[in-house]
């Protein structure tokens, strides 16, 4: 029985580890400025934790077989209540491992979340509602117009869905889109809102995720460094249509972005 345990535990460990090392299923290629740092920290964490996992499982299987009753190396069990030196040793080692790993990632988190977007970032207001995303740009005046809940008409979509108040001068040049378009290599400041329940804005390639919470306007930022189309998925359970609350993020060149925004402005006039 000890041998079977050893074989099964070792096999499970090796097969599990293989799929992590071979990266059959893995993070998509990063496309934002933060991706390299985050991916590096993933690697560091796997390098630190992986051997602990393998060593503990291999030891478990090995001991089960080696110290089985009736086995060659088992005459009688050792009468020992433990070893204080060992206890101190592995406590200190684990503290260093866990706290050290944490400290290593501190600066990435700080640059992502402590600092606000730099001046000159492209501002996009992202609003989640059951079960769609809307993206609003402030237009040439750089100001978002007023929205009023009582003006909302969800079925009409676009500006009406956000309840944009046409009487506010600042809202005259606001552009509301069903697709998120941003220029490459420029910081994007996202202002996250939700109308009804909590949603979460997640783009795996940008290594970017943040909940959109009703009642809050959450300011976040990321910098796309690769043009292309990326899928936005909702990452917080928001109701029966959660699985299809889906959007598109288009990262384009600055010229294309300017052209697109100008065209939307023109449409509006």
């Amino acid at each position: 029985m000890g041998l079977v345990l050893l074989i099964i535990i070792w096999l499970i460990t090796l097969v599990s580890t293989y799929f992590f090392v071979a990266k059959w299923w893995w993070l998509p290629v990063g496309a934002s400025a933060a991706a390299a740092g985050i991916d590096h920290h993933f690697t560091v964490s796997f390098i630190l934790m992986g051997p602990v996992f393998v060593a503990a499982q291999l030891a478990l299987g090995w001991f089960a077989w080696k110290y089985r009753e009736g086995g060659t190396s088992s005459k009688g069990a050792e009468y020992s209540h433990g070893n204080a030196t060992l206890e101190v040793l592995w406590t200190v080692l684990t503290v260093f491992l866990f706290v050290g790993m944490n400290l290593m990632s501190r600066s990435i988190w700080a640059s992502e979340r402590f600092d606000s977007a730099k001046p000159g970032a492209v501002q996009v207001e992202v609003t989640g509602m059951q079960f769609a995303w809307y993206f609003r740009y402030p237009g040439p005046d750089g100001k978002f117009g007023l929205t009023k809940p009582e003006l909302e008409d969800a079925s009409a979509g676009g500006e009406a869905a956000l309840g944009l108040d046409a009487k506010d001068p600042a809202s005259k040049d606001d552009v509301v889109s069903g697709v998120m378009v941003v220029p490459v290599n420029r910081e994007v400041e996202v202002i996250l809102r939700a109308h009804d329940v909590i949603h979460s804005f997640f783009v795996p390639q940008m290594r970017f995720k943040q909940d959109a919470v009703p009642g809050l306007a959450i300011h976040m930022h990321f910098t796309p460094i690769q043009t292309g189309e990326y899928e936005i998925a909702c990452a917080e359970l928001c109701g029966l249509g959660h699985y299809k609350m889906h959007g598109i993020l288009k990262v384009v060149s600055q010229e294309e972005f300017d052209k697109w925004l100008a065209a939307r402005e023109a449409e509006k006039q």
Partner: protein
Amino acid sequence: MQAAHAHEAPQGFIRKWIFSLDHKVIGLQYYFLALAAVFVGMFLSLLMRIHLIWPTATLPFFGEIKPETYLSLLTMHGTIMVFFVLTTAPQGGFGNYFLPIQIGAPDMAFPVLNMLSFWTTFLGFIVLLAAFFVTGGAPLHGWTGYAPLSALQSAGPGEGLGADLWITSIAIFCIGALMGALNFITTTLDMRAKGMTMMRMPLTVWAWFITAILGLLAFGVLLSAGILLLMDRNLGTSFFVPLVTVNGQLTGHKGGSPLLWQHLFWFFGHPEVYIAILPAMGLCSQLLSVFSRKPIFGYKAMVYAMLSIGFLGFMVWGHHMFMSGMSPYTAFAFSIMTMGIGVPSAIKTFNWLGTLWRGRIRFHSPMLFAIGFVSLFVTGGISGPFLAQPVLDIYLHETYFVIAHFHLIMGVASIFGIFAATYYWFPKMFGKMMNEPLAKLHFWLTFIGAYAIFMPMHYYGMAAGLRRYSQSTEVAYILKLLPLQRFISIAAFITIASQFIFLFNLFWSMWKGKKASDNPWEATTLEWTTATPPPHDNFSGKTPVVHNGPYEYSVPGAPRDFVMQSDPEIEPAH
């Protein structure tokens, strides 16, 4: 003290088996409640696994599973499993049955409270199940019930009466759990037999004791949060709901905070993880020592580790909320504390390995499940430091990586504790042995099955596969992961089927099992000194006196390879 608690053995079926004051009967009641609940919860997961790979399949009696049905299934699966299985069986079931016997007491400190706490829990379960049968069905807001989704009747089907029943059930459960916790704490502190000092208590008793303290502090918070949520839903208050519109319609709420619900919920929710796992830790420590015929490695370190897990467990709730919009500065503090809680967990693992080392291991079925527990605990634990770091959580939050993590460490590991406890204590509870070949078959299928189900979920999450998605058809990168889902579902079907081996063995052995001796495992703790099954007052009026620690195995010079706790005192070691 103890004489005051003695009560006559009851006559008649109702006082003996239904409204019993005997902690052993109440323990069995809790156990069978959890057994019923686990099969309901497992059936719900079966339906989910079917739906995930055949979204349009029509099931007999159930019809087609719609997206909202799927969400109801996962809400009820989580709620049933966390509350009525993982909290009910290890603590209410085995804790109730064996804590008094292991400390040499005739019963719990408050037998009537004990009876009330069971029947309250039972009522909670009935109220929860009722949610399936009301208009709109069971709620779809997930077991975490994040507001405003859980607070607004108009937020989706199931958010009407179903959601009211759900939150009422949890509130009722909290009341039962609070009564139980009080009883466990008082019993442990006041009812120990002569010589049973705190540091001679079996680690199982320590685990139940610490779990009870966690329960006392955590369930009160959840109870209050639940009442506030009920008021938001029905009395027009706005604790958790700001000004929101659903489908463009104003709801009348304003000024509340959705994050407040998350703080209150996880202040309970994180200690709850330890409420589920601590009893399994205590039990597996016990079993590794018994079946290795070796004292537990580092008894004191084990006690201090459990105490620090319990203490730190109350300071880490924010790690569920890194992406919630709370201050990023607090995320850093919660992260450090969470990594800190990994330290006592690692100490326990090292001590378990240290116990096996140079032992003389007997592979009876309880031991197989205890070794399986260690393996699963390591695997589930190793993903913890990934999720504890906010930087990695940006990517991993709400993916299947999280599902894999908490199912392994909180779900499967605890369930392995429950299985180990069942196989270990069944002889004492029913006077019969369970069938060993069937038990071993059950172990192998469940152990390999659990890995086959939950290991691929890590990969699914690494590829950004999101949880709580009823279908993967709408997002291209998730659709690509469908082969993994198929593999997981097939593994789940086989593992679920093999649980009927356990069910059969359990009931068959009650009637047809081999007769058990009083101490079939040659263990040292007090439950093995008394008759099988134990009499009404546990020790037939002869209260034991304790002279030894709980893990005196292979003592040099002793006549047998184990020294009972009530045997004459052995020479102090070195």
